């Protein structure tokens, strides 16, 4: 709880305000929501750093999964959901493999991303990926360079996916539509134009 400082000058009050307390503006329900969606006991994290030490993203970015776990436990919902680093996880699951507390930090991150997405906080490239999947069934669709490489290796130009069997695309779209992901992606992208 911030200490109330009784300066006469209002400007001085604002300038010298305690800003580094977090307990008062934290949301204790946030960790419960993360645990419910992520299906992992995230509050049991003991901050050993095995996750960040295992993370392929950490050495080349400012992404620190341990800090996200910490902030989630403290209920720093705003700080977590508005942090662009949240989207730097590659979901390789190395942290989940090695976590000595047997947690799934990756799934906690996924849960936090879901909560962010609910509030329309999501990077544009992720939304474009949604559109690409809706269109082709692939986040990274096949391209000419790939086709040439596959041919050279004696493979069919198109892989055994929706590329080769586009008749399965409607089923896939039904799932995406059910969660209104495409609709939402289109809307947010349009709003940002």
């Amino acid at each position, binding site marked *: 709880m911030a200490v109330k400082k009784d300066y006469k000058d209002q400007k001085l009050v604002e300038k010298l305000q305690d800003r580094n307390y977090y307990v008062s503006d934290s949301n204790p329900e946030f960790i419960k929501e993360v645990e419910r969606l992520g299906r992992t006991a995230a509050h049991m994290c003991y901050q*050993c750093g095995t996750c*960040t*030490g295992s*993370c392929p993203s950490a*050495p080349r970015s400012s992404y620190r999964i*341990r*800090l996200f776990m910490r902030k989630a436990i403290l209920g720093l919902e705003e700080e977590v959901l508005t942090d662009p680093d949240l989207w730097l996880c590659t979901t390789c699951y*190395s942290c989940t493999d090695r976590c*000595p507390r*047997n947690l799934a930090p990756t799934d906690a991150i996924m849960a936090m991303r879901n909560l962010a997405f609910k509030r329309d906080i999501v990077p544009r490239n992720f939304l474009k990926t949604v559109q690409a999947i809706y269109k082709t069934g692939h986040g990274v669709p096949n391209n000419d360079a790939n086709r040439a490489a596959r041919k050279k290796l004696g493979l069919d130009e198109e892989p055994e996916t929706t590329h080769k069997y586009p008749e399965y695309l409607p089923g896939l779209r039904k799932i995406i539509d059910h969660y209104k992901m495409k609709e939402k992606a289109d809307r947010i992208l349009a709003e940002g134009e």
Partner: protein
Amino acid sequence: MAEVKKNEEPRIGVFVCHCGTNIAGSIDVKAVMEYAQTLPNVAIADDYQYMCSTPGQNKIAEAIAEHNLTGVVVAACSPRLHEPTFRNATAEGGLNPFRFEMANIREQNSWVHMHQPEEATSKAKDAVRIAVAKASLLEDLIPKSVPVEKAAMVVGGGVGGMQAALDLANAGIKTYLVEKNPTIGGRMSQLDKTFPTLDCSQCILTPKMVDVYRHEGIELLTYTEVEAVEGYIGNFDVTLRKKARGVLTPAEAEARGIVGGGCTGCGDCEAVCPVIKPNPFELGMAPRKAVYIYHPQVSPLIYTVDFDACVKCGLCVEACGEKKAIDLDAEDELITVKVGTAILATGYDIFPIEKKFEWGYKNYDNVITSLEFERLICASGPTGGHLVRPSDGETPKKVAFVLCAGSRDNTGVGKPYCSRFCCMYSLKHAHQIIEKIPGAVPYIFYMDIRSFGKMYEEFYYRIQDEGAKFIRGRVANITEDPVTKNLHVNAEDTLLGRPLDMEVDMVVLAAAVEPSAETEKTRRLFGLSCSQDGWLLEAHPKLNPCGTTTAGVYLAGVCQGPKDIPDTVAQAEGAASAASIPIHKGEVELEPYFAQCIEEKCAGCGLCVNLCPYGALALVEKDGRKVMQVTEAKCKGCGTCGGFCPGGAIWMQHFATPQIVAQIDAFLLGGEQ
């Protein structure tokens, strides 16, 4: 049997305890007391703040006299806690102590129904009613005394077992010290120095080893394992397997008529033996022969033939010459000893840390365990105390220590507990490389430094001052440079919030500990319980840390849970003290919950005899017919026979059928009969 005071008209006194607010916080104690007054056979009911206090106990004694009570009921905590207290109070008042019955309204009621006061009060009334029903039918019982054999056994010859054996023997008790290895000394003899004093481990241990070997009161049985245990406190018959050693001690040689013969530890046999095996004492980092001793300071100094490796070429027999100490046809020998009490000190093994494959132990040459580090830094070790990299024999300059390697790990591969001494020995290791290798820097990767003991925090201060680097972060993984065999340690410096990839010359894993391989077998032989991670279970974690649930069996050292040398020795002394009490007393009192045969009802079918898990029953000839007879000292009152007997001919004292039926009736009928 003792004279039994028959229940004429039962007159029961009921005492309800408030236990401060422990009980009274959720149970209406007054209402329970007033309810008790309405129950049949209740002569007086009362309540008090703390029944276990002296005034509380006095209430019981006074009421017995005043109301001529035949039984006492106290509704309070668990009988495990205060049954002995209230039995004494009952006896104080002139009643037989087994006329007392306890109703648990705390652990099984107020503590679990904290937020349901009405239901809790109603449940407490039930408990009191049931207890009164039983108390009305209780009878006088006389505990049985059995003599105690004036001898003790210690299983495990590490520092804990040795200390326990020395204490027992010094107290005048004949002590058998059983050790599975050819020498005593245990893990401590493998260590180089001991924290926080930096004493040389062997220097402080070998005098004790010599004391044990020389002590007249100690019969040292090395290369011996426990095979079977029978009996009960005061009278354990323990069968031991003396494994074929293939080498005679001077005493054994003399017994065979070889004058002046037997092993002198000269080593001539070892010199000629052509078979080379890895020495387990050096963790396989040094060779030994098929006829061997672990190290020069072994006790007893008697060689051992490894019959799994020996090719029986006979060169050693020739080299031994006139001493005729070697017998290549030796076989295991079973002996039985009788002891009154036993102490288990079966120690620990290192968790197979290669299972945590992210750290590369057994995959990367220069990743070693801390026990291997101890041998490599020890002057009597395989390298003469020069710490070298296994890959190329070079001296490492930059060494990473990985703490909590497999400890505090809930993944299922690893141990959930703290292994308790790794922090401290890793600090010591850091000190040793700073001291021995000029310019060497230790990097300690830790989560928490647990320097909890006397002078331990000061030791931490000292090592930090000497230049050890501390990085707060658990090591995520280790990779090896295939050319240089250097290691890359990946972790997060959590205090900086920055991942790091540190290249080091050597990594030392402070591997978790687990119960030794023999612990489980020994535990079953002695009928002990273990906690979920396999450590032997003490009778009470705080108030009876040396005792077990088997009367007459005690615990010392790491077999009960990870602990360092000071704690191990302290517990060993505690266990020795506890184990000597029944022996010095000369007899033990057994709870008189024995099965009794009602001979007129017994058909002599003998079905119960085979059912008894303790071998306490037998069929005997009496007045021309067969009846069952109970060896009371062996009977644990489990009730298996009593529940089974088709003729209802077995009377379980203190848990007799009419008493149990009365309890059930009291519950089901709600007190109306």
